[in-house]
């Protein structure tokens, strides 16, 4: 006997066993049922073809399908409700697994199930059928009819006869509210049977609405007679008056959205437009009541027809919650009717202006803001570069505000002492808080936008980079990149807290953005690649598996960039870039003065600290050194490299070689660092930086780099990004490195010893980074 036949034989025996041992007694069927069902599903017992059984020929080897069907039929007519229910479930399993069984028994099963549904009170039992039976029958019938969709013969014989009955009985059953929301999934039923025979609302899911939707979608013509009733039924759940189960509202709206199919080819669009129109009208009516105290400037709205909704009490205390609820449900219904596609391209400008207005108007409403962000992501996906072009800069400004570095309140104290910036929180603590207080509780004062908002903002950023990475101005790019890198580094340094869910999620999002930034480089910003590679390799050793798998995937992608498979086609030699870039830089230098002043006015801290020394070559584990400065310098370096006609891929090569051999570049690097002396003019710094040595800058006199590093850490959080949002216009951005470079001399010297000692004392008083902000503030205050 072949293996196949052996299996066949076993399956037949198994099924026989099930029939004789577990399904034989009506009373016990229910308790055995989970096991039976599991066995059938696991072994796919019923999917053995009937043909094969005839081939084997032996009585034992053939599948006992006839017995099986007989048993199901007798179960259906059992007096025990549990057995009837089991019968229905067995039908469902049978038609799911075996096409032959389906074809053979469709007619008889259909009428049997319909009789269960229609009568409500079966022959011998005087109480109505339990919910679970109705619900299982509806599901099974729905699947049965759905399967006839592409079989014209079956449609003629079965569907056209039985489907109208099914539809009407469903509508009749709708009076039973529990059936609208009742358990449906098989797994749930298992659970129900095995644990609690009682109906558990926790596992409830709507049954009738999905079945109605399926019916109208597949057989619109048959559905037509009850379409109006069905629409009314859906609308009753949108009036806000019920203690609306959100699931129920959702399924009602979905059903409503499919009802236009009932119109058939000719008029379904009319139905759709009518429904949508009236939904909008209903929202208007509800809003008119809610906002009747507001004078409208113009009555521009044409009259909408609205659906009939139950009237609400004149007392607003009672009425308003209902109305709000109603508006909410109606909006959901409108949403379910709509779709976004590229027919909307002509109206893109309108969309983008609305979105941007929403963003700017709701600066402090995080939920509005984050949902606007979700919408922006959708638009970016749908409309691509066109959307980026219209919204890029204002959108980026909003984004940078929401994903700024975590800010410490204590930073605000010093700002408060120095200048009178307009922060409300400052006023509160101005008088009583001393610096030591600030130090002691600094941890609790970390302030950043909520998780929801940040995650949404990172999603937008990722999409923006992917879609229009190159349409973003280089200055914005460099601030984004440096923000991403410094946030990641900061997170990786915060030992104790980085484990919690919040940080993991944020971290993952930042990693995703970083990958997007690597993948969509603008001309000057492949510079993020070395950082990204470091961070991704570090991420591979992360505790969280999610981050680990993402990082290894990201590294694979980076590998394609650094070791490209095909030789790159070179580009951009016709316009040499180096002369192009340098004027750009000097141009900025020319504009420097006013910007610097502005920064000084706003916040002294922004100009302090960041000397730009960057512990480049190997990222010493404790150093968090990333600031605008190294970023900018690397940009220069890379752009020059590009200008030399290097292929895109080769962009990495110089940097990697630089990472590899820091020693060679050392003298120059020290030279560069020494160039950052107090009175050095800015241009000198930029020029020296624009050479290749800068990204490396490995070793400097012992305490000098570390202290600077620390200072940078101090300044990044508070000063760098969050406070300087408005200064993110192009010219200002370029300024930042220079600004940092210049005043560093004045403020950094006195602080060095202290900062350095902090570091060397192994977090003597302060847990590493977290305290850096306050620490530096203290320092500045001391004198």
């Amino acid at each position, binding site marked *: 006997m072949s293996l196949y036949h052996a299996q066949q034989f076993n399956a037949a025996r198994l099924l026989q066993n099930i029939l004789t041992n577990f399904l034989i007694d009506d009373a016990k069927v229910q308790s055995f049922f989970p096991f039976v069902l599991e066995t059938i599903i696991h072994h796919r017992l019923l999917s053995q073809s009937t043909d094969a059984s005839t081939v084997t020929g032996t009585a034992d080897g053939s599948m006992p399908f006839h017995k099986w069907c007989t048993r199901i039929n007798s179960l259906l007519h059992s007096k025990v409700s549990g057995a009837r229910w089991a019968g229905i479930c067995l039908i469902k399993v049978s038609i799911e697994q075996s096409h032959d069984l389906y074809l053979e028994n469709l007619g008889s099963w259909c009428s049997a199930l319909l009789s269960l549904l229609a009568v409500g009170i079966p022959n011998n039992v005087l109480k109505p059928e339990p919910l679970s039976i109705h619900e299982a029958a509806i599901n099974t019938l729905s699947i049965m009819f759905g399967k006839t969709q592409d079989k014209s013969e079956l449609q003629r014989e079965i569907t056209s006869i039985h489907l109208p009955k099914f539809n009407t009985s469903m509508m009749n059953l709708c009076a039973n509210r529990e059936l609208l929301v009742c358990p449906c999934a098989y797994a749930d039923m298992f659970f129900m049977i095995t644990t609690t025979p009682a109906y558990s609302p926790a596992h409830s899911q709507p049954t009738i609405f999905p079945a109605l939707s399926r019916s109208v979608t597949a057989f619109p013509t048959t559905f037509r007679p009850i379409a109006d009733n069905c629409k009314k039924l859906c609308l009753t759940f949108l009036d806000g008056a019920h203690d609306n189960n959100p699931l129920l509202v959702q399924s009602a709206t979905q059903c409503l959205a499919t009802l236009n199919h009932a119109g058939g080819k000719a008029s379904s669009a009319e139905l759709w437009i009518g429904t949508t129109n009236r939904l909008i009208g209903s929202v208007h009516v509800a809003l008119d009541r809610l906002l009747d105290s507001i004078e409208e400037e113009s009555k*521009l709205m044409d009259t909408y027809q609205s659906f009939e909704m139950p009237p609400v009490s004149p007392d607003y205390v009672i009425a308003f919650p209902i109305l709000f609820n109603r508006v909410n449900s109606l909006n959901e219904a409108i949403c379910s009717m709509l779709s976004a596609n590229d027919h909307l391209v002509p109206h893109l400008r309108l969309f983008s202006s609305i979105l941007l207005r929403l963003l700017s108007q709701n600066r402090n409403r995080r939920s509005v803001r984050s949902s606007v962000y979700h919408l922006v992501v959708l638009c970016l996906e749908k409309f691509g570069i066109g959307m980026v072009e219209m919204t890029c800069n204002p959108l980026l400004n909003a984004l940078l505000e929401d994903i700024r570095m975590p800010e410490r309140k204590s930073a605000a104290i010093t700002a408060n002492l120095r200048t009178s910036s307009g922060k409300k929180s400052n006023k509160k603590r101005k008088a009583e808080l001393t610096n030591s207080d600030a130090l002691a509780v600094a941890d609790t004062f970390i302030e950043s936008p909520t998780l929801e908002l940040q995650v949404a903002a990172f999603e937008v950023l990722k999409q923006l980079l992917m879609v229009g990475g190159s349409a973003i101005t280089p200055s914005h790019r460099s601030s984004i990149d440096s923000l991403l890198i410094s946030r990641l580094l900061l997170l990786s340094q915060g030992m104790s807290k980085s484990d919690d869910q919040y940080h993991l999620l944020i971290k993952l999002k930042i990693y995703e953005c970083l990958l997007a930034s690597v993948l969509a480089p603008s*001309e000057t910003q492949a510079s993020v690649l070395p950082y990204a590679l470091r961070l991704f390799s570090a991420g591979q050793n992360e505790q969280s598996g999610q981050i680990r798998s993402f990082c290894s995937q990201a590294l694979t992608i980076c590998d394609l960039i650094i070791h490209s498979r095909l030789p790159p086609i070179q580009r951009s030699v016709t316009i040499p870039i180096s002369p192009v870039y340098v004027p750009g830089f000097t141009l900025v230098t020319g504009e420097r003065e006013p910007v610097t002043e502005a920064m000084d006015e706003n916040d002294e801290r922004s100009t302090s600290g960041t000397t730009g020394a960057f512990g480049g070559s190997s990222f010493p584990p404790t150093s968090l050194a990333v600031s605008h400065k190294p970023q900018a310098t690397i940009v220069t370096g890379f752009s020059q490299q590009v200008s030399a006609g290097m292929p895109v891929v080769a962009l990495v090569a110089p940097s990697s070689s630089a990472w590899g051999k820091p020693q060679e570049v050392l003298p120059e690097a020290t030279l560069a660092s020494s160039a950052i002396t107090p009175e050095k003019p800015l241009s000198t710094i930029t020029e020296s930086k624009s050479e290749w040595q800068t990204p490396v800058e490995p070793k400097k006199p012992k305490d000098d780099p570390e202290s600077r590093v620390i200072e940078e850490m101090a300044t990044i959080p508070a000063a760098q990004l969050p406070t300087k949002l408005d200064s993110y216009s192009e010219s200002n951005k370029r300024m930042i490195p220079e600004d940092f470079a210049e005043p560093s001399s004045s403020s950094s010297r006195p602080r060095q010893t202290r900062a350095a000692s902090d570091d060397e004392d192994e977090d003597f008083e302060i847990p590493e980074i977290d305290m850096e902000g306050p620490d530096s503030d203290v320092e500045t205050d001391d004198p």
Partner: protein
Amino acid sequence: MFTEVALTTSATDPTSYLWDIRSGTVFFSFKQNVCGKGALALAPLHATPGNRIGLVLAAQADKAIVHIYSWHKDQVHVKCICPEKLVTIAASNRGTYCAGGTEAGKIYVWEISTGNLLRSFDAHYKRVSVLRFASDDSALVSGSEDAGVNVWLLSNLLDNSSDDAPTPYYSWSDHTLPISDIVCGVGSFRTARVLTGSLDHTCKVSDSFTLFIGLLCTSTFPLFQTVFFQKLNSNIWDLATGILLTTFLLPYPITALALDPAERTFFAAGGNLVYQVDLYRRREARNYGSGEVEAVGGSGRVEGIEGGDGDPGEARLVFRGHSAPITSLALSLDGSLLLSSSDDATVAVWDVVSRQSIRTFVQHRGPVSSVSCFLRPPETAAAGIGAVQHKGSAATVVVQPFRRMRKTEAEERDEGVGMRIAGNVEARASFVLFGIPGGSLEWFSICLT
């Protein structure tokens, strides 16, 4: 299971044929279709993803009419009377928009499902010779006999909030003779590369004609743009040079192009020959077993491609067999078969690897003007049981005759926004226009699939 078919049209023979590229069997034909080179566009079915072609749009060569065909009948499905005679036509990859170019350099953009004229503008100084949509439908690339290539962002082009003439996002003017063909490479707007072919007059002395690969890689752009506009207040020509990747010089004027799906090689038709140009070449192996692969061109370099005649080394890369100039090229799905249509009234199927002609299609009674290759639409499958089964899924693309005038603002308000109703995937498509009067966002018209 799947069959690849070619649709070939002629400028004099009114019958277009749909035939199997491997067997030569004719499956279907369209009547009364006389369209010239570049005047045929294929639009996909709305509801289906990918490359199931649902509509064939053909700008008629002799009159200002666009014929729209579907697979249900061989006669014209919809006849659109256009404001001017269109010489070239293109449909967006999602089948939403159709763009047509005229003799005078004007471009019209219609919404296929409503027939609304969304924009008409002067794009070139001379005849628009070719129109292409970028593969993500974010841009329209137009080539003209004024030797210019313009890239238009669709969002700018269709922006209904401004009535100003649109300005091209890029404008490439490196060619000096009429543009004959354009191919947009794979990928989004950010990464795609564009291949433009031209008959270039400047090289006439050397009897050479150039072919450009322009890089539509926007990544190079913003930098130049800002810098140049600030510093030099320069014209766009400077921008264009920044993105030109490679110029290929071929011995004949280029009339048609085809690009390998993986962009490893491209085919250029010049005269009676098709040249295969590899974008990567293996350098001579100096050591045993080590050949180096390098990219051809780049950095705006000029690469000369030697003609087949008398040069045995390069002759390997030429497909010969046609007796009259080639009008159009197409590649099969995997790029292993090349189809070329020619004025000698034949269409040849070539095996790319061996460069042998494996089949010649000779049913056309006049010069063949265009060839395109795609998977056989299920609608054209044999009648009988199959036809019954397909009844349920017999989808037609929603299409209305193109309008000759733009709508007035009031009409636009009344009509509103196109909306595709998701739902019964296999249902027949129908289309109705409706307006919800009133507010700014709440207008809809429906395109129901």
